[in-house]
């Protein structure tokens, strides 16, 4: 048995059975238990698809995905996922949306009735952490875009998942809120020893948080470059201004630019192809 | 040609052969009439259809018409041609039930639709037989349900038209021999049965009514001559009917309700003034009506063809 927690082995995925064009092709990615991985790449390259593959939401068309030593068939039950679009349930208010995973995932599901008060307090605490303490009774459509995104993040965290999948969780937040939440996330991860996969467009965010940053090619997506971030932990926000940090960001930037350049024949100007 | 809308009391069955025959053979056309004949959903319903002006003429239960007239004097209809001189009203029970005389019905359960004429005039029957009207219990059900309900013992007896229920029961496997049948006419009930009734608007056109009745009389004459041939016209109109069954039904109707002693004596279509008055009294009593109409208000014999023409038996 390998010592990887997540293993993606030469995976292809076609969204439409009949459609030959693949969303990801020849995807290989290994993630160690407790590792914090960031995935970056041009828009539409297959980052969200990657997350769906790991969590079992989409079965691979070819290749295999293994999580925790087991072949992924169907979905797992120790995953927390923040989707790219905050898909909050419109008939639940914010607090009850956050509580949803507790109603589904064991052991919380069984304990929920007896320890209602404790769980409620935990949810409220989490809401406070992201600055939504005063908004727990609001329905999703009464929240601003950034507030929805924060609620979405809370929902991914509430049930203490072992594997955390975050799809651009801070995209709609202002710089300060965002940086604050970086620190919250880093701390949480250290405490609970979470394995995290973070999809983001913000290279600084990727480098600040991750142990390894993977760069994906444009569609059909595959990993074209992986960069280990060897900055010491815990990292303070000041690290962003250190030359080593800036250099990594710069290096990654270069990789993405190259990926997109190839892309000029298949991506941004794909009409030409 | 004058259009005349004619509603029957029920589906296209044997006993209405004369009208279909008259239409098919052009007897109505000969009188300058363009008659359309529609099936009905009950002899009381037929009264309503004529009263509302939806139809000009109906083949309907005269008792229901009397009731309607008392309740709605401004739209009072008139009967102009009596067809069922004896009402086909009857009570049926299975022999095995031990019911042998009308008084045995006391304490029993009877089944029939609420609008069933025999049921509605039941008190005339009880008055004639000495049965206590309050001692029976009625169960209400759609017409086609009553025979199966009797068969399965869910009711002890049913009321209905003699020639309908008898054949229905026969059809279901109870021959007439296994039944006890009390026909109202056999117990001295004076009631009349179905008649041709017309709306007040029609009465204003005596020639039309007269012509209509002439044609009807001819139709009956042909039918009495050769019932089997008459049934063919029913079959022509409704391809679904069972010719043998309808022929039996027609013959039963003729035997028990149409070709009665008094009809043979006075010709088809006529009524006896005295008996009519008694019949009206019976109806008034049975339906608990607030007033008693005069016989002239119920039946108008002035449109009938000459007696010779009506002596067709």
């Amino acid at each position, binding site marked *: 048995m390998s010592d990887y927690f997540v293993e993606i082995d030469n995976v292809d995925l076609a969204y439409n059975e009949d459609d030959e064009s693949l969303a990801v092709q020849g995807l290989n990615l290994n993630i160690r238990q407790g590792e914090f991985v960031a995935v970056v790449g041009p828009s539409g390259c297959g980052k969200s698809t990657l997350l769906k593959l790991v*969590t079992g939401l989409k079965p691979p068309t070819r290749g295999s995905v293994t999580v925790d030593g087991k072949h992924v068939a169907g979905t797992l039950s120790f995953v927390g996922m923040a989707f790219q679009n905050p898909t909050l349930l419109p008939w639940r208010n914010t607090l009850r949306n956050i509580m949803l995973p507790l109603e589904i995932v064991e052991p919380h599901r069984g304990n929920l009735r007896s320890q209602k008060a404790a769980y409620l307090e935990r949810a409220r605490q989490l809401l406070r952490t992201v600055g939504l303490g005063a908004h727990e009774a609001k329905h999703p*459509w009464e929240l601003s875009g950034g507030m929805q995104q924060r609620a979405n993040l809370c929902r991914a965290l509430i049930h203490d998942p072992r594997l955390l999948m975050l799809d651009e969780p801070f995209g709609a937040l202002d710089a300060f809120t965002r940086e604050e939440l970086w620190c919250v996330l880093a701390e949480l991860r250290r405490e609970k020893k979470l394995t995290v996969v973070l999809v983001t467009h913000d290279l600084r965010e990727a480098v600040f948080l991750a142990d390894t940053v993977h760069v994906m090619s444009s569609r059909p997506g595959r990993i074209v470059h992986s960069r280990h971030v060897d900055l010491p932990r815990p990292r303070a926000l000041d690290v962003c201004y250190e030359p080593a940090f800036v250099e990594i960001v710069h290096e990654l930037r270069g990789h993405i630019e190259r990926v997109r350049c190839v892309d000029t024949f298949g991506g941004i100007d794909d009409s030409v192809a | 040609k004058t259009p005349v809308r004619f509603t029957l009391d029920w589906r296209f069955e044997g006993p209405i052969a004369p009208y279909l025959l008259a239409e098919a053979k052009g007897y109505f056309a000969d009188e300058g009439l363009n008659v359309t004949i529609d099936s009905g959903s009950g002899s*009381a319903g037929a009264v*309503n259809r004529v009263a509302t002006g939806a139809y000009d003429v109906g083949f309907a239960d005269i008792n229901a018409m009397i009731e309607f007239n008392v309740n709605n004097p*401004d739209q009072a209809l008139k009967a102009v041609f009596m067809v069922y001189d004896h009402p086909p009203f009857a009570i049926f029970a299975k022999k095995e039930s031990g019911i042998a005389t009308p008084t045995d019905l006391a304490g029993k359960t009877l089944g029939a639709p609420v*609008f069933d004429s025999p049921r509605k005039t039941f008190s005339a029957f009880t008055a004639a037989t000495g049965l206590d009207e309050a001692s029976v219990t009625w169960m209400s059900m759609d017409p086609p349900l009553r025979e199966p309900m009797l068969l399965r013992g869910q009711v002890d007896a049913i009321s209905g038209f003699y020639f309908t229920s008898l054949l229905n029961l026969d059809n279901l496997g109870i021959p007439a021999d296994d039944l006890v049948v009390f026909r109202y006419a056999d117990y001295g009930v004076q009631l009349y049965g179905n008649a041709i009734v017309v709306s007040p608007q029609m009465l204003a056109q005596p020639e039309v009514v007269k012509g209509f009745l002439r044609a009807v009389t001819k139709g009956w004459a042909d039918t009495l001559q050769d019932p089997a041939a008459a049934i063919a016209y029913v079959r022509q109109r409704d391809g679904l009917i069972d010719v043998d069954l309808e022929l039996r039904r027609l013959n039963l109707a003729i035997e028990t309700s149409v070709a009665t002693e008094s009809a043979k004596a006075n010709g088809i279509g006529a009524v006896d003034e005295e008996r009519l008055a008694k019949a009206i009294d019976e109806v008034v009593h049975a339906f608990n009506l607030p007033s008693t109409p005069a016989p002239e208000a119920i039946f108008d014999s002035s449109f009938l063809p000459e007696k010779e023409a009506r002596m067709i038996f």
Partner: protein
Amino acid sequence: MILSRKNLERYSPLIVTIIMFAAWEAVARLARIPSYILPPPSEAMMAGYEFAGPITTHALQTLYTTLAGFALAVIFGMLVGVIIGSSKLLYRAFYPILIGFNSVPKVALVPLLVIWFGIGTTPAIITAFLISFFPVVVNVATGLATIEPELEDVLRVLGASKATILLKVGIPNSLPYFFASLKIAITLAFVGSVISETVASNAGIGYLMMSASSRFNVPLVFAGLIVIAAMGIGMYALFAALENRTTSWAFRR
């Protein structure tokens, strides 16, 4: 008297009802429609008043059979709707049969029911059930079949079972349409029980109407119709209140 918008909204059903009755009364009187064709509502009301006692008894009987049949329809309708709505195979397999069954007028089946269960309450309940069951099935099934996969994924990623997804997403998502189907179903349930009563029963508004019409008491027939309509509206008010409490999220505007 000038009504505020809010009061106008509150009393609008009443106002419309009154206008409708007034129009009916006017037409019936001015056109001199005889009361054995279409009695003016005032006459129907008077007949209703005159026979208030029997009407109440019969109405309660009808209400009872209707509600019993309706309750069965909701329970089984949801069950079948859930089964059909969550499996494409079962959807394809059973939908046509259901459609075929529902195209058949239930009156035709009442005689069967009467022969099996005897005259009275049971056939009425079953008829009400049979007639009102289908709309619930259709709307629940449609509600489930049109869930956005994105919402479903939220639960799937947590390892939720099909049943859980149904409970947490499917049902709430189709709730507005479930209520819409209840509104259709309750009216049909009334129709079903009344029809069954007209075919074979000694009690209920259906029997009352049948009996009144056989005595040419058309105003009483209409009184019966009005009573049914009123009961239907009463039941609707109940659902509307329930709907307001549970699905206001869907009607936010």
